[in-house]
């Protein structure tokens, strides 16, 4: 808001009545850059962390040559991808082929506009934040579908069909899990959801009363981001690289960025909805000295580590098993827990 007023005053002689618009616009742009730039850096270092963590799990070393301890590896990778040629299939659809990665990244970034990092630190504090997040993340599937179709390749097409079916299936369970969260918190605003979890210890967070929903939401999140063990859309052992098999260079890199940005987003959402967002685990002396944003980032890092851990631990699901898990286990479980929470909240035993 300070920037807003300053820019407005600066531009007043040049733009007249439009200076207020320009002020708001520049203020918003600065805030957007302040979110997206660190996020992109996190994405870059998440790829490094992934290779190191999986390396450690598999008793390998991982990248350790570029820079100290291999810390410059992500930058070297980005440079390499920037310099590579983007090949567009001759029989493919040029326009759709180029915008597909952009749609993927857009859907991964747009939801960050309503994520509160600590109390009051949020770009858009809208009252239907949870719905907005759900709507924004549901757009991500278009990047995959359009990429698979525009590539004019059978492998890419099979990957895109698998991904479309999988994401639509898991979105239902995810939506029901979110319904229980908004029942427990009584609000769709993400800051209000975190504030509803405030209490003396970590036992007041929603993971405890909504434990099955926490598990369902996180596993559905893994499925939504097409990560192992749900990565049949890529399935490198059967359909080469799935939907992005025809992509190279920067176009491929943008898909890569979108996948990792989505992982961070799902971790952030799980933290906000079930793990108390920026709240400290114990609300007394040494713990509540630490700023809220630090706790928030710490919890996100833990969930991101789980993503990497899953990838190194579980073999890829067979396609019918994915559908079985989504439709026959998660959806009935979420519906049952919805009723349980509804009844539980009417009794004095509800402590949250």
């Amino acid at each position: 808001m300070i920037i807003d007023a300053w820019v407005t005053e600066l531009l007043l002689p040049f733009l007249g009545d439009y200076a207020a618009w320009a002020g708001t616009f520049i203020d918003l742009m600065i805030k957007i850059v302040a979110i997206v730039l660190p996020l992109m850096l996190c994405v870059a270092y998440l790829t490094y962390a992934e290779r190191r963590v999986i390396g450690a799990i598999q008793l390998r070393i991982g990248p350790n040559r570029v820079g100290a301890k291999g810390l410059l590896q992500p930058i070297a990778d980005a440079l390499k991808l920037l310099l590579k040629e983007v090949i567009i299939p001759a029989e493919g659809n040029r326009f759709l082929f180029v915008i597909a990665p952009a749609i993927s990244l857009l859907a991964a970034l747009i939801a960050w506009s309503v994520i509160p990092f600590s109390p009051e630190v949020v770009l858009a504090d809208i009252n239907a934040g949870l719905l907005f997040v759900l709507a924004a993340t549901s757009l991500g599937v278009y990047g995959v579908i359009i990429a698979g179709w525009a590539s004019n390749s059978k492998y890419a097409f099979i990957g895109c069909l698998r991904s479309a079916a999988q994401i639509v299936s898991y979105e239902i369970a995810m939506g029901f899990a979110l319904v229980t969260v908004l029942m427990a918190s009584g609000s769709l605003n993400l800051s209000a959801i975190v504030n509803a979890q405030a209490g003396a210890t970590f036992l007041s967070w929603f993971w405890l009363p909504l434990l099955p929903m926490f598990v369902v939401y996180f596993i559905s999140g893994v499925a939504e981001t097409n990560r192992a063990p749900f990565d049949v859309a890529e399935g490198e052992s059967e359909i080469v690289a799935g939907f992005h098999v025809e992509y190279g260079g920067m176009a491929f890199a943008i898909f890569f960025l979108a996948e990792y940005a989505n992982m961070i987003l799902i971790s952030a959402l799980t933290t906000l909805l079930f793990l108390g967002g920026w709240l400290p685990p114990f609300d007394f002396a040494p713990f509540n000295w630490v700023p809220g944003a630090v706790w928030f980032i710490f919890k996100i890092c833990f969930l991101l580590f789980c993503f990497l851990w899953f990838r190194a631990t579980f073999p890829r699901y067979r396609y019918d098993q994915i559908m079985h898990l989504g439709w026959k286990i998660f959806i009935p479980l979420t519906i049952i827990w919805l009723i349980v929470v509804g009844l539980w909240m009417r009794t004095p035993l509800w402590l949250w």
Partner: protein
Amino acid sequence: MFEFESIVFYFFAFLTLSAALGVILVSNPIYAALFLVLAFVASAGIWLLLYAEFLAMVLVLVYVGAVMVLFLFVLMMLDINIDTLREGFWRYLPFAVIIAVLFAAEIILVLTNPKFTSVVGDASAALTDDNTRALGSVLYTEYLYPFELASVLLLVAIVAAVALTLRRRINTRYINPATQVQTKPTDRVRLVSVTKESPLQFSSPSNDKKGKTSCPD
């Protein structure tokens, strides 16, 4: 000076109209479906301008995020020949013109009706506060029976659709994951104790004084 809202409105209105025109004008059905997606997103933007945030989000979530994905899913797998779709264009044209004129007449009749404008005015005035909460409290109290009736109708439609399309194929092999998980090593591997016959004499290379290889192939 324009109001900021009106500029945004004209932008989204232009986008909605041109995308809707695209839906009916392009020959490729995939493009038509993608134009429909664009039209949905743009009309969600218009609804947001009217403070109808619940409707806007649900439009994106349900229609863009789920329904159109399935539409595209089906369209991409169909083998659509555009030439056969165009056959008989001139034969059907008179009927199409009659239907189009009828629709246009209906729309004009509705839009020129003075009652219609007053209804719209009231609706947008009621939507200014937290309308997700307002919608929920009305839907589950005042309009509970119509709401439940609609959901039961949808459920019947789902059951009917499943009943019509479900076919059991005889020769598919289905493995129940529960039984798969419950298998024990003893179900799969049988350890057999084999009686030893004359044991081979192994010796380590350092003790091997004769220089012979100690292991036969």
